[in-house]
C-alpha cells in the first residue's frame, strides 16, 4: 500500500498555519518522500481564514490543490465551518478545542481529534506555540511521519533569530502528540 496523505491547515492570520504547513512538508521531504505545499489565497485573506494545503506521498504527486482532503487541522471556528463539509467521510479532523467547541464537529462522520492547543501552549509558556501543539497531535493521530522527523526539521523553517525557541517548539510538538486521546 503506497503512502498518501493530504491535509488542509486553516486558522486566522497570525496563528502560524503556514509555518506548520511548511514544517510538515519539509519534514516529509527530509523523510525521503514527495511533498507539495501551497498557500491558498483568496478573498478569505481579509479577516477570515488563512490556509495551506500539504500533500505527502511516496509516489509522484499530481494536484497540490485538494478540494476533498483526507485530513484537516482546524485552528479557529470560521475554518471549521468552511472546511469540515469538504473533509472525506472517515477523515481525520484535528480541532483546536481551545477556540472551537468540539461539539460542532460531525463526530459521527469524521474521526475527531480535539486538542486544547492554546491551553497546552500556555502551560508551556507561550500561547503562540498552539500551532505546534496542533501539528504534534496531527502527526500522532495520522502517523503520516515519525514525530522525530518533524522535530528535526524545526531548524529549517524557523528563522535563525528565533532559533533559541526551537527546544520549546519541539516540546510543544510532543505535548500535542501526548494529548491525543486524552481530551
Amino acid at each position: 500500500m503506497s503512502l498518501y496523505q493530504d491535509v488542509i491547515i486553516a486558522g486566522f492570520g497570525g496563528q502560524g498555519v503556514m509555518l506548520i504547513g511548511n514544517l510538515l512538508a519539509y519534514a516529509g521531504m527530509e523523510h525521503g518522500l514527495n511533498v507539495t505545499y501551497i498557500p491558498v489565497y483568496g478573498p478569505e485573506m481579509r479577516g477570515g481564514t488563512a490556509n495551506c494545503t500539504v500533500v505527502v506521498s511516496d509516489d509522484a504527486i499530481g494536484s497540490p490543490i485538494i478540494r476533498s482532503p483526507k485530513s484537516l487541522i482546524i485552528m479557529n471556528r470560521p475554518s471549521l465551518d468552511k472546511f469540515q463539509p469538504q473533509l472525506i467521510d472517515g477523515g481525520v479532523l484535528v480541532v483546536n478545542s481551545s477556540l472551537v467547541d468540539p461539539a460542532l464537529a460531525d463526530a459521527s462522520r469524521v474521526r475527531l481529534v480535539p486538542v486544547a492547543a492554546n491551553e497546552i501552549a500556555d502551560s508551556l509558556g507561550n500561547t503562540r506555540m498552539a500551532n505546534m501543539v496542533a501539528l504534534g497531535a496531527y502527526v500522532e493521530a495520522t502517523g503520516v511521519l515519525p514525530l522525530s522527523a518533524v522535530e528535526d526539521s524545526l531548524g529549517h523553517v524557523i528563522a535563525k533569530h528565533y532559533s533559541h525557541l526551537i527546544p520549546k517548539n519541539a516540546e510543544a510538538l510532543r505535548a500535542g502528540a501526548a494529548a491525543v486521546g486524552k481530551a
Partner: protein
Amino acid sequence: MSAKRIFIKGNEAIAQGALDAGCRCYFGYPITPQNDIPEMLSSAMPAAGGEFVQAESEVASANMLLGAAACGVRAMTTSSSPGVSLMQEAISYMAGSELPGVIVNMNRGGPGLGDIGSSQGDYYQSVKGGGHGDYRTLVLAPASCQECYDLTFEAFDLAFKYRNPVLLLGDAIVGQMKEPVTPRPALPLDPEAGADWKLTGRGERAPRILKSLFLDDGALAGQNLHLQQKYRSMQAEVRYEAFETADAELIVVAFGSIGRIAKSTVRSLRAQGFKVGLFRPITLFPFPEAELRALAGQGKRFLTIEHNLGQMVDDVRLAVRGLTDSDFFGFLPGNMPTPEDFDAPIRAAVKGA
C-alpha cells in the same frame, strides 16, 4: 539519492535555475504573482557577480534584456501577464535580430489587470507571437517546482543554441507552491558563447550589426525564410509527458499546473476502471504535434482542459485534423482548480464515444 533536495517555491526555483545556468543579468519590474523571483535575485544575483536591475517599467526591462543579449550575456527578465504585454515590442525585436534571452511569464488572470490568481489565458500570446511580425519563441511550460528549475536552466542553452528568445510560461499555482527541488551543478560561463555575433567592442575585427530592419530589395523575404527554417528546426526540442496513454480510449490534453491537477483526476478515474490517460505538452512551441497525431491514428479520442476558455485546444485540433477532434473543458480564471473540477467533464467525454 544524489544531490541534496531543497524545498523552495516554483518562483524561487526559476531564480535558482537561472543562477545555476550562468545567468548574470536580471532586469525586472515588480508584479504579483512572481515577486519572489526579483526578491531572491536582488541579493543572489549580485552575490554571484551579476547585475540586478529593478527597471522603471516592463518596457525598460525587456529592452535591457535585448541590450544584454546583444552583448552575448546570459540574461533574463520575469513578469506576469500585464507586464509581459508591455514587453512584446522588445521580444519581437529580439526575434527579428536573433538575440537569445529568457522571458518568464507567471500567468495571472486577465484580460487587463484581471486578478492575481492562476490562469492560462496567455497561451495565445506566448505561442502565437504576442508581438508583431512572423516570429516564434520557444515556449516551455513547467508543472512542478523541479521543472521550473530544470526548464529555466535549459532555457538559456536553448536561447543560445537557436539565437532566439525563450519564454517560460508558468502560472500563480506553480509559482507559489513549494516542492523539493534537486539542483544541478552550476555551469561554468562559456566565454566563447555567441563569439561570432555578439557585440564586444570592435577592436581589430570586422564591424558587426545586430538589427531587425531589412530595407534592401528581397532582404526581408530572405530574413523571414531564414527565421522560418530555424523555427522548423526547433521541432527537435519537442517535450511532453505521456501518462497512461498506451491503452487509453480518451486522452486528456492539459499543460502546466492544470496538467498535474488533471493527472490526479486521471489516476482516480483509472482506479475506477476508466481507460483514460494524460498528455501534457511541456514545450508549447514547438507543439508535440506528431506525437498527438500518432495517438489519434490509434483511434484515441481527446479532451483538452485549460485554465482559460479555449486556446491550446486549437493546436490539439490542428494536430489531429482529418483523424478526429478534441472536446474542450475550460476552467474559469478567478477560481482555484481542483481534481474534482475535471471529474465530470472527463466522464462526459468518455461517454461521448
